[in-house]
């Protein structure tokens, strides 16, 4: 039963994963944290952090990680397979009928219409991590949190490698919180 739920949840995430990794965070958050309640907001932030410093797209990483947390190795395989399935089938169809779609008015209209939604979804993912529903899931716990947030934002703006930014904050955390 848990495997079927995992499969359906990640199939949905894969199917509606327009706008790439960060936009998919919002889908994952809505499905896994809010609706299913499988993990907390802090655990979700931890998974994103791990995902930033390991290879591969965040959608795959989160599927593997959450799948394992909920259903062991089989669960991780089910979730990873489910999140890949829509990409595989849809891209096969698109590659095959590429020329028909290239200048299709409906397709380009739909893509343009989804763009502001995708931007809003990424913003929502960030807001939910900043202000989770219950206080004990807080990711911003003191002034240091906001300082690290500001520093990392500046670093990202200056195009510093995200792995370095995450590792820097890890070291800062060990210094500050130990």
């Amino acid at each position: 039963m848990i495997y079927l739920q995992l499969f359906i949840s990640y199939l949905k995430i894969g199917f509606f994963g327009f706008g790439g990794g960060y936009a998919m965070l919002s889908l994952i958050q809505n499905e896994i944290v809010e609706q299913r309640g499988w993990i907390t907001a802090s655990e979700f932030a931890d998974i994103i952090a791990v995902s930033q410093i390991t290879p591969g797209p965040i959608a795959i990483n989160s599927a593997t990680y959450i799948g394992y947390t909920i259903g062991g190795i089989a669960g991780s395989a089910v979730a990873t397979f489910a999140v890949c399935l829509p990409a595989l089938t849809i891209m096969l169809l698109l590659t095959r009928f590429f020329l028909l779609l290239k200048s299709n008015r409906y397709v380009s209209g739909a893509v343009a219409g989804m763009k502001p939604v995708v931007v809003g979804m990424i913003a929502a993912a960030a807001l939910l991590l900043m202000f989770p529903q219950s206080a004990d899931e807080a990711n911003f716990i003191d002034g240091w949190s906001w300082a690290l947030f500001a520093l990392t934002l500046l670093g990202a703006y200056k195009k510093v490698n995200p792995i370095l930014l995450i590792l820097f904050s890890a070291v800062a955390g060990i210094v500050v919180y130990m």
Partner: protein
Amino acid sequence: MIWQLFISFFRIGLFTFGGGYAMIPLIEREVIDRRGWVAREEFLELLTIAQSAPGPISLNTSVFVGYKVRGLLGAVAAILGVVIPSFVVILIVAIFFANIRHNEVVDAAFKAMRPAVVALIVAPVIGLAGTLNLWLVAVAALVAVAVWWLGWSPIYLLLAGAAAGIAWSVWSARKEGRG
């Protein structure tokens, strides 16, 4: 050829951290310059499609390159190549993370990594909002509030956005036809 596809994409999957757009230059180098599997022009055209299709961009790109080179089997080989490194690494992390999660040092590091992660998500929002006009920024803000505050599912909002986009393009095409 199938094996070659798998190995090439395995390498791409293994060496791209942070995912997504970081992978594109690596894929370009491997499949265009090194292997000559796809012409650059065709690659760029298909990349546009891969960006508008659902799913991670690296996955979508691996599917179309694999398909172009060796059909359905090629697509499956390429997607497996991209997924397996990340699957194995995360599985190992997940297995060991449960044991070290309550370690004092790990806990301190993660406390600090969480706000940093949020900053990495906020950064592209600012960049993307810059490409939208004022009306669309307002739409994006409404979507953010609906998902964040009201807990609406992003799926319905995506569908509504697609429908509105189609209606808009049909409407403006009709207006053009009349004028």
